[in-house]
């Protein structure tokens, strides 16, 4: 196991090389740690690097490989958004409030990955408590986009997006309440899946708004997300929202061709409701053409306006996030970032009647979305208006004043993933969103995988 480590690897590639004993997990982890040492000071993707533990876990993985053990995640270096609890390792949610928090046990998702032999490299940047937005008044700086460090990564899984794109981890865990996996996936040019609610355990993940929170994988490719989901998915009796989902191998299911698949294009979303830039419109046109070339039938689809999903999502998030933080807000308000305060404090003023009206309206939107899947197998949308904006362009009240296209899938309780759809003239990534029916996670991953293969967007990496 002495072959040199290629500069960039996917999980699938690294898994094959390790299984063939052509790549040492120890060498791979050392390679990743060296890259982190060089790139992280500028990008701020990692809050904490667990170097000694990573090397120990890599050595254990190497011993297992030499003893004949095989597995797609054995010896694969991953990192986790800092809202995932990790036994004996600080979990801060990038907040002064939890600066000294050291959990006693791993989140269920982390436990499952480690049981498969994955290696933890460290804890990744997040927006404070997965909602704040990029903040400059916290002890840790916000993560920066590897394609252009002046630009926003998207959030709140900001470090996860930056680390995967820059090759500082082969995969990561993120969380998604209104788009927090898919926005950084879009802006950082990677793949990210928000699974069907209940498919992946949230036990040990610091919540934001439990009605809408989901935990999920982020990686360079849809195939890697499928490999991670194989380990992550499964009923967790200790998570009351966990549901026994379909018994499928997601990594195997993505191979089936797309011929005959019915794709609904949510054109009104990005042409009218939240108008996209010309480059994003071109990307969506090319994405539809690519899927047609793969044998899909692509037609326009219609859902209620994005603003309706967004209003419901924002009211629920405000009320639930405030409720979770109320006790701390009343005693340590100045310890939160200003962005967090702006986005959460208004939840104190949401009346119960308004919160329930939002939940009731959500049932209508879930039904309306489900009806669209009587005609279509998946829906295609733009996750953002365009390329990643400058960090300095971010406003504390962005979460309210600008509707998020991604919130549709959270409110509708359906799986959704973002894959890289192409690049702007300036070389910045543009994402494409694929939305499926509840429990259609395998189909969503399958479309993402074939799209990536056909579009050829996975060869280009940010500057090393």
């Amino acid at each position, binding site marked *: 196991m002495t072959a040199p480590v290629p500069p960039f690897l996917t999980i699938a590639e690294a898994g094959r090389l390790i299984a063939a004993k052509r790549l040492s997990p120890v060498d791979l982890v050392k390679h990743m740690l060296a890259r982190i040492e060089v790139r992280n000071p500028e990008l701020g993707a990692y809050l904490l690097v667990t*170097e000694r*533990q990573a090397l120990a876990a890599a050595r254990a993985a190497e011993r297992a490989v030499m003893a004949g053990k095989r597995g797609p995640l054995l010896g694969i270096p991953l990192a986790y958004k800092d809202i995932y609890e990790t036994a*004996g390792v600080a979990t801060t949610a990038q907040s002064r409030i939890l600066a000294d928090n050291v959990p006693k046990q791993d989140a269920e998702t982390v436990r499952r990955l480690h049981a498969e032999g994955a290696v933890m490299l460290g804890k990744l940047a997040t927006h404070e408590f997965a909602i704040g937005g990029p903040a400059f008044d916290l002890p840790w700086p916000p993560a920066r986009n590897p394609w252009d460090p002046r630009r926003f990564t998207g959030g709140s899984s900001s470090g996860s997006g930056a680390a995967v794109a820059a090759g500082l981890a082969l995969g990561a865990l993120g969380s998604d309440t209104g788009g927090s996996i898919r926005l950084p996936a879009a802006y950082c040019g990677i793949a990210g899946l928000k699974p069907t609610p209940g498919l992946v355990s949230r036990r040990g993940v610091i919540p934001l708004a439990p009605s809408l929170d989901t935990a999920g994988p982020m990686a360079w490719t849809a195939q890697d997300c499928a490999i991670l989901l194989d380990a992550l998915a499964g009923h967790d009796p200790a998570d009351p929202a966990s549901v026994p989902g379909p018994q499928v191998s997601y990594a195997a299911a993505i191979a089936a061709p797309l011929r005959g698949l019915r794709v609904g294009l949510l054109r009104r979303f990005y042409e009218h409701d939240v*108008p996209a830039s010309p480059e994003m419109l071109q990307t969506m046109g090319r994405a539809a053409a690519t899927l047609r070339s793969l044998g899909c039938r692509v037609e326009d689809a219609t859902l209620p306006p994005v603003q*309706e999903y967004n*209003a419901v999502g924002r009211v629920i998030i405000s009320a639930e996030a405030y409720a979770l933080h109320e006790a701390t807000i009343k005693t340590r308000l100045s310890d939160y970032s200003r962005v967090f305060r702006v986005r959460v404090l208004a939840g*104190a003023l949401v009346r119960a009647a*308004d919160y329930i009206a939002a*939940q009731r309206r959500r*049932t209508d939107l879930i039904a309306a979305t489900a009806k669209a899947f009587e005609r279509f197998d998946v829906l295609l949308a733009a996750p953002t208006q365009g390329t990643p904006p400058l960090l300095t362009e971010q406003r504390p009240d962005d979460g309210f004043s600008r509707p998020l296209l991604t919130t549709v899938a959270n409110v509708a309780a359906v799986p959704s993933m973002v894959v890289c759809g192409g690049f702007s003239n300036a070389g910045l990534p543009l994402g494409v969103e694929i939305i499926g029916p509840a429990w259609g996670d395998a189909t969503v991953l399958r479309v993402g995988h074939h799209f990536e293969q056909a579009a050829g967007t996975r060869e280009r990496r940010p500057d090393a």
Partner: protein
Amino acid sequence: MPAPPTMPVPAISPGEMQLLLARAGLVLNPGQVADLVLAWRQVAGLIASIPHDRPLADDMAVAFRLPPPALATAPRARPAARPAAKAQRKAPPKAKVPAKRKARPKPAPRKSTRRAR
């Protein structure tokens, strides 16, 4: 990039905001109040856009997952009652540790971690 259609943002007077703050039990400094007014006007606009006039018979979007009747009514296997004095002498039974927890790696010493710069 074209801006999305703007949403009407309702106004709120300082007196109204003070009432809302008092009801919520929040004590804020002037800067924090200004931030809250900024956010609340947006949230109030979102709330106003959500229909409230629904039929009374509509279900709420809340699910209670009660155990199935067979489990709920099954007699519990309880140990036979024993005299209180005897029960006190015995140590309480140890909680059974699930197998998956045994497999969890031990927490590493803190010194094995280092802060990223």
